[in-house]
C-alpha cells in the first residue's frame, strides 16, 4: 500500500472520530417536562430550554429575585417553556444586565430536584427602535 493511501485512510478515520465524538458533546433543545424526565433517568447532560419570562398584565416580571447585597452570585427567576409550563430557574451568577428587557430566554443547564440549574443564559432582546430586529447576548456562569 502506498503511503498516501495510508495517510488518506488515517485522515478519514480521524474525521469520523471527530464527528462521532462531537455528536456525543452535542446538546438538545427540550421543554421542562422532557428535562425533568431526563434528570429522573439519570441523564446528566446539559440541555437547552427556550422560554419566556413570567409577566403580569402590565408587563412586570413575576417571581424574580436578585439581592446582590446578600449574595451577588445568586439569581432566581421563573421561566415559561413553549408548553407554558412554569419552572423556577437558579443561575449562580450576577443577573445579566439586560435581563429585564429580554423577550425570549434560552437557558442551558439541567434540572435539579425542584429547580432548573442554569449554567448559561442566552437573551434575545428586542431592539428599542426596530421591533423586527432581535439582538442576542450570552451570559455564562463560570465554573470553578
Amino acid at each position, binding site marked *: 500500500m502506498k503511503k498516501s493511501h495510508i495517510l488518506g485512510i488515517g485522515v478519514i478515520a480521524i474525521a469520523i472520530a471527530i464527528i462521532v465524538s462531537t455528536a456525543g458533546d452535542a446538546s438538545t433543545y427540550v421543554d421542562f417536562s422532557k428535562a425533568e424526565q431526563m434528570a429522573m433517568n439519570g441523564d446528566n447532560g*446539559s440541555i437547552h430550554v427556550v422560554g419566556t419570562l413570567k409577566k403580569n398584565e402590565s408587563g412586570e416580571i413575576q417571581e424574580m429575585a436578585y439581592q446582590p*447585597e446578600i449574595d451577588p452570585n445568586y439569581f432566581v427567576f421563573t421561566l415559561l417553556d413553549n408548553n407554558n409550563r412554569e419552572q423556577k430557574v437558579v443561575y449562580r451568577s450576577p443577573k445579566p444586565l439586560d435581563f429585564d428587557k429580554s423577550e425570549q430566554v434560552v437557558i442551558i443547564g439541567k434540572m435539579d430536584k425542584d429547580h432548573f440549574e442554569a449554567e448559561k443564559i442566552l437573551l434575545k432582546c428586542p431592539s428599542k427602535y426596530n421591533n423586527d430586529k432581535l439582538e442576542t447576548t450570552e451570559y455564562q456562569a463560570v465554573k470553578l
Partner: protein
Amino acid sequence: MIHTAYGDAGRLLVIIAFVTAMVATFAYAKSVISSTRLDEVPVWKRYARIAFLVHAAAVAGVVFCLYWIIGNHYFEYHYAWDNSSLSLPTEYVISSFWQDQEGSFLLWIFWNVVLGLVLIVINRSWEGPVMAIFALVQAFLTSMILGVVIPGMDLKIGSTPFLLLREAMPEIPVWQTNPNFIPKDGNGLNPLLQNYWMVIHPPTLFLGFATTLIPFAFAMAGLWTKKVTEWIRPALPWALFSAMILGVGILMGAYWAYETLNFGGYWNWDPVENSSFVPWLVLVATIHVMIIGRKNATALKTAFILAIATFIMILYSTFMTRSGILGNASVHSFTDLGLSGQLLIYLLTFTVLAVGLLIYRWKLLPSDTKEVSTYSPEFWMFIGATVLCLSGFQIINTTSFPVYSAIAESFGKIINLAPPTDAIAHYNRFQIWFFALITVLTGIGQFMWWKRTGEGRLSTLYPPLLITLILSAIFITMGEVRTISYIVLLTAAVFAIVANGTILLNILSGNYKLSGGAVTHIGLAMMLIGILFSSGYTRVVSMNNSGLMISRSEEFTKNDNKENKENVTLWLNRPAQMGQFMLTWRDVRIEPRYVPEYIPKSWVEIIENDFHAVALRDIVVQDKEYYKAGDTLEIYPENFYYEIEYREPSGKVFTLFPRAQINPRMGLISSPDIQRKYNKDLYTYVSMVTNPLEEGKWSPTEEFTVAMKDTFFVNDYVAVLDNVVRTDKVDGVQLSENDAAVKAIIRVLDAEREYILDPSFVIRNRNVGRKAQVSNELGLRIQFNEINPKTGEFTFAVNTKQRDFIVMKALEKPLINILWLGTFVLTIGFLMATIRRFRDFFRDQRRELATTTIKPKKRTPQKV
C-alpha cells in the same frame, strides 16, 4: 431639507458597478477562451479593463456617497440614523460606516477593487483569467447592495444602504402628518464598537477576506489556461500576505474582545470568531502545500483543493454569519436582511464552478512517479498541512450545527440539535492535541528542510530535543503544570521554539530574508504558551468569602464550597478584603472629551439626552483648570467609570476604572479595566451596577424631633445630634448680611467609621430655606426642618434608600504578554515571508519579460 441627491446617486452608482462588473467578467472571459480569435484578444482585454476601471470608479463613488451621508448627519437616511449620531466623535463616524451589513459588504467590495487594480498593474500576463474571476465575485458582491425589486415577481435583490428613513420604516405614523420629517439625532453607534480597535479591525479583517480571493483566482486561472504549476509563483506571495492580514484581523478582534467585552477572555469559540479562523487555518495549510507543490504532484493537487477550499470557506462563513442561520448560537447579532437565498447562490455558484473545473482538468495534473520519502521535508510539510485542515474541520463541524438543523428542517425533520453547552471545553479537548502536533511538526519540518535531516541524519535533531526536555522540565516544575494535555502542549511549543530558533540562528548567518518561516513558527509557539498559561491558569481573585450568605448558609457550603462565589459586592467607600487586596469602591466618574482624566460624576450635572454637562465646580485636573463652575463641557454621555482602589499588602495603592455604559438600546454594558504587569494581567469588571443616572428610590419621609446630644436611629444606624452652629457659608446659596444660617452637626455611627452630615437651615429675605445633606455611602438624606426655640428641640426629615453598591469580578491572567508578543513575532514572520516571495516573483517576472520580448511576433495581431 431631504438630500435625495446623494442617495439617488449612490443607488445609480451601485447599479453601474454591478453592470460593469458583469461586463468586465464577460469581456475578460472572452479574452481567455480559445474560441476567441487571437487578434481579438487585446481588444477584449482593453474593453474588459475599461469596464473594470468604470466599475472601480463607481464603487469609489458609492463609498463616497455613503460616507457623505453619514459624515454630514443626514438622518433622513436610515443608515445614518441607525448607526451614527451627532455626539459621535469623528473617528467613530468612520466605524459607523461598516456597522451594518450593507456597509461591510461595501468595504469588502472596495478592497476587492483595490486588489484588482493592483493585480492589473503587476500581473499583466495573468490579467485575463484572474480578473474574470475577480469581476464575477464583484458582480455577486455588488448585487448584495443593489436593493432592486424586480417588478411583477416580488423579488428583492440585495439591500441598499441608501434607503430613506420613510422607505425603511413606512409603518411609523409621522409620515402621514409630515412626509419630510427628519429626526434631530440618530441612534448612535453601538457603544461596544466605540473603540479604536473597531476603527481598524473591520477594514483589516475584510482586507483579509478579500485577499483570499487572489490565491483562489490564480488557481482557477491556472486550471483554466492549463498552466497548472505556473500559477503558484504569482499566487504564493499573495497567499502569505492574505494569511498575515487575516491573522492580524482576527487577533485584533481577539484583543478588542479582551479589552472591551467582559467575556473574560480573548477567544470564546463563538461561531463568528470560528468562521474567520477556519479559513485562516486552511489558508495556512494551502501556503505549505503551495511551497512544495512545484516539486511534488500530490502536493500540487492538494494545493488546488485547498486554495479552492479557503475561498469556499470564506463564502460559507459569510453565509453563516449573515443569513441569520446562527440565530441563538452566537453573541454577535447579525440581522437577516433577507439575503440568505442570494448568499446561498453565491456560495453554490463558486463551489460548483471551482469543483467542476478542477474535476474537468484533473487528468491534466501531473502525478508522482515515485513515492515521497518519509525522510523528505515535503512529507512532513504535507502532514502538517493535513493536521491544520483536520483542526479546521473539527471547528467548522461543530460550528455548523445550526446549518445541519436548518438542512434537516428543510427535509421536514426537527432534530433539536443544540451546540455543546461548554463550547470552550469542547473545542479545547480537540484543539490542544492538534496544535501540539502542529507545533512539533513546524520544528521537524524546518529541520528536514534546512538541515537535510533525513535518513541516517536524524542525530541532527538530538541537540534541540535535549534542550527542549531540559527547558520544559524547568517550566513544568516552576509553573506547576499538572494537566497531561497542558504538559504535552507546553513541551511541543518549547520544542518548536528551540528547533525553529536553531534554524533561525543558522539562516541568519546566511540570508536572513529566508527566515520568515522560522520566525512565524516561533511566534505561533509563543502564542500557544501565552494562551496555555493565561487561559489554563486564570485565577479568580474576587472570591466572595464575606459570609453574607446568611439566608442560604447551607447552600453556600455544600459541594465542598464549590458553588459559584466569583463576584463580590462592594459598598461605596467601604473597604473589603479580596484575596491579598483591600478593595474600596471610591466613586463614579465620567469621561470629559478634552480633559486627560476621568472626573467624578458629582462635579457636573449631566444634561439628559445630550453629550454635554454643566460643571458644578471648577474642574481642575493635574493642576490645570479646564473649566469654571457653570461652564458647559463635552462628555462621552454613555460612559461611567467605577473607581476601584486596590491596596496591596505592602501598602501600595493602585486604582482601576472598569466601565459601564448606559445605552438606551442595549441597557447596561460593562467593560473591564486591566492592570498590566510584565508577567500577568489583573482583569477587573463590574458585573452589576445601579444605574448612575437614576437616583434610586427614597423611602417616605420620617420626622425626628430631638434635643441636643440626643440619639436617634436612622436606616439602622445610630445618629447623634452633636451640635447646631451658626454658619456663614452654605453651598449653592448666596448669603447676604441680613440672612442667617445654622447647620446641624449630626454624627452617624457605622460599624467601621463615623460620618458627619450637616444639613443647613437658612433664613433669607424672611423666607426659610433648607439645604438637605445626602450620603450615598449610608443611603441617607437628612433635612433640617424646624427649630423650636421654646423647647430647644430640632426637627429633621429623614429619607433612606438602598446604599450604593457595585458587584464586580476580578481575574488574574498569567503570562498573557507572551501571547501578545507571539502575535507580533508571528506577524513579522509572515511579513518577511511575504516580502521574500514578492521579491522572487518580481525577479522571475523580469526574467520572463526579458525572454519573451525576443519573440513578440507570435502575438502580433494580424490585420483583418
